[in-house]
């Protein structure tokens, strides 16, 4: 029988030393956590953008890397200088920079891309309070800023250059200088061709990306694949792209049925312009999309509707950016009106009962 110590406790036997020195940690339950983390989600998104950037580089040469690089450096530097301590490590600024670069034309001057990254992070995110607080997608806000500030540069699309190595425009234009008139011929994007000249582009070309367009927007199938990976890993909400695609297909399908000669076919709508990248990577930005499942469907449907409206009847050939930004602004409202029904409560509060 062990001898009770002076305080009434049993003397600790030698092989139980670990208990004598045990320093117990106190924390609130639950004491287990899933392996998810916000940086892990963000870096997975970054990783899924790498193949898209690689294919873009294949199509647009070194210009693609220069523009995307400049935008990313602008975004990360701003986050680093003005963001919360250590917030660059969560990877969200890298995503903003990469995405911004991917939605710019390949011949875009680097200083402008850099400025877009700075603006996107500073005025699209940090001014609201940093990660999780912003209303609008920072990359799209950066692009909206660039579109307003440099309307010519952002709508200059190069055609096939002499070699892969040649630049697709005046990437190295000096800051505050307009890009010199490019030596290479410029062309139009499939959406521009459709809108202003009524010329269609082959669907297969749109799917694999061998068309003019923004750096990372052309390879529709690849974007679908990379986004699909994220959806499978639950790093993005599949409902949003699904509802965008369905709405666009349905709406433009109806139009196409009414007038096949006046309206583009639904597949063209789906794979042209920035729709794929926008639906998979911009609309699904968790911070600026609804948190409720029902809200996600509404949000996506709104984007799809607006995209077709702008493309068909608007003054611009492309409308994904404005469609998403507009719906971003509605997110608080959508969230409020789509709160889930609580377990054990009636489906809808009787209107008169509250008064």
């Amino acid at each position, binding site marked *: *029988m*062990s001898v*009770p110590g002076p305080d*009434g*406790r*049993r003397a600790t*036997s030698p*092989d*139980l030393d*670990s*208990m004598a020195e*045990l*320093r*117990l*940690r*106190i*924390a*609130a*339950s*639950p*004491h*287990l*956590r*899933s392996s*998810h*983390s*916000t*940086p*892990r*989600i963000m870096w997975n998104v970054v990783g899924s953008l790498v193949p898209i950037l690689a294919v873009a580089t294949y199509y647009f040469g070194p210009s693609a890397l220069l523009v995307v690089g400049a935008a990313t450096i602008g975004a990360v530097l701003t986050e680093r200088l003005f963001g919360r301590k250590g917030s660059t490590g*969560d990877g969200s600024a890298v995503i903003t920079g990469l995405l911004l670069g991917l939605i710019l034309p390949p011949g875009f001057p680097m200083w402008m891309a850099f400025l877009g990254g700075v603006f996107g992070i500073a005025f699209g995110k940090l001014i609201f309070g*940093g*990660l*999780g*607080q912003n209303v609008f997608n920072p990359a799209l806000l950066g692009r909206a800023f660039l579109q307003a500030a440099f309307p010519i540069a952002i709508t200059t699309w190069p055609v096939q250059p002499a070699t892969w190595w040649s630049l697709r425009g005046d990437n190295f234009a000096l800051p505050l200088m307009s890009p010199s008139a490019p030596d290479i011929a410029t062309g139009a994007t499939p959406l521009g061709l459709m809108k202003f000249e009524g010329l269609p582009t082959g669907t297969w070309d749109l799917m694999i990306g061998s068309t003019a367009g923004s750096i990372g927007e052309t390879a529709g199938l690849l974007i679908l694949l990379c986004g699909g990976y994220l959806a499978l890993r*639950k790093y993005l*909400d599949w409902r949003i792209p699904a509802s965008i695609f369905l709405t666009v297909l349905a709406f433009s399908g109806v139009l196409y049925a009414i007038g096949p000669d006046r309206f583009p076919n639904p597949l063209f709508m789906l794979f042209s312009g920035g729709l794929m990248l926008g639906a998979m990577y911009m609309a699904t930005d*968790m*911070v600026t*999309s*609804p*948190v*409720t*499942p029902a809200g*996600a469907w509404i949000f996506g449907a709104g984007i799809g509707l607006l995209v077709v409206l702008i493309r068909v009847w608007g003054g611009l050939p492309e409308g994904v950016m404005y469609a998403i930004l507009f719906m971003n602004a509605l997110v608080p409202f959508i*969230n409020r009106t789509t*709160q*889930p*029904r*609580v*377990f*054990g*409560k009636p489906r809808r509060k009787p209107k008169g009962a509250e008064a």
Partner: protein
Amino acid sequence: MLGSSTFRHGVHPPESKHLTEKVRVRRMPFPDEIVLPLRQHAGKPARLLVKAGDRVERGDKVAEADGFVSVPIHASAAGTVKDIRLCPHPDGSMAESVVIAVDRFSPQVPRPRIVPRWEGLSPKQVVEEVQKAGVVGLGGAAFPTHVKLLPPDDMPVHTLIINGAECEPYLTTDHRTMVEYPARVQFGIRIMMKALGVDKAVIGVEKNKPDAISRLQDTLPDDLDVSVLPLTVKYPQGAEKMLIKVVTGREVPSGKLPMHVGVVVQNVGSIACIGEIFETGYPLIERIVTVTGPGVRRPSNLLVPVGTRLRDVLEFCEGVTDEATQIVFGGPMMGAAQPDLDTPLIKGTTGVVVLTKDQARSVERYPCIHCGRCLEACPVFLNPSLLGTQAQAGRYDEMEAANLMDCMLCGCCSYVCPSHIPLSQMFALGKNMLRKRKAAA
């Protein structure tokens, strides 16, 4: 009616039951000292009956029920009352407790038949005996069992549901009870059905316990409508409301009791306990506890006298490893971390889980990115993301409007949150604040 075998949402933490699910229940020897807090159940604490220096036999009452929602407490070992003092309580506070110096030379045989035989007792008398035996819910909440056995007349109860889900990771207390004492479970069901006057009983067991399911199925009585319902393995399948939804297809209305949908839910351990008290005649003085986790040297299922200190239990399990950093009473999803090795295991202690450095560590917190994972985890369909924002701003009225009081603190939201926001902790605080405010008003 039995459309699905599970509920919507919930999470899948690693089950980690392999450590003890095949380990037979062992009886732990009596420790040198027993600490019996007067507050071991939900409701009013028991009223003290003994004083320092009194001799008590095993099974003697040391405190009596104080009112209806209260139960007595019995000495779990023979010895001398050494002191009545404040001792660490599993809930983190200090609580008035009876400290008994165990008589090492006593044979520890209880007085015979403290609880009478059940044959010939009226349902009302059965309920009285259940209270007198100090029976509480052994699933963790420790709600006095007899209260649930007396539904008001305007709420007819038609089904008794026995909760054998045991959805908390690591714990195998109920699992071993079902495997090793199926007859006792069936006997308990028989008594409960008579006391409640119901003619249907369903035992819900998660499918990760096939041996328990088959043992129960083999022992089903011929003369009663009792069935075993295998359940999908998902946390919190064992939450009362989730289990009722699966068994009956009905949702318990918000803020109401299971009786409102005509059911009473009892933990399988409590059922076995009722079977045991009428079988042996002893009150609730010992219970089965799983001592497990990667930080304990010999994971075990133990039959422990109520009031045994954590230190003694861990010593009996050959101590903890060098990696151990945190000890939880109950399961790791809802259990409470214990700071003091002198804390006693009480009636509601389902398990002792010793976690290691790589599990229990501080993680960096990030801002909410509105990913919506918590919404898709919450089994009662709240919006934890919104509630978390409100909690951080201290806006408790808004939290109440956002149905905070429906939160059952299951911890699913905290478990899935990629930003590691301690949501359920904030909600526990918020619920307390609202309750206090209501009490003050």
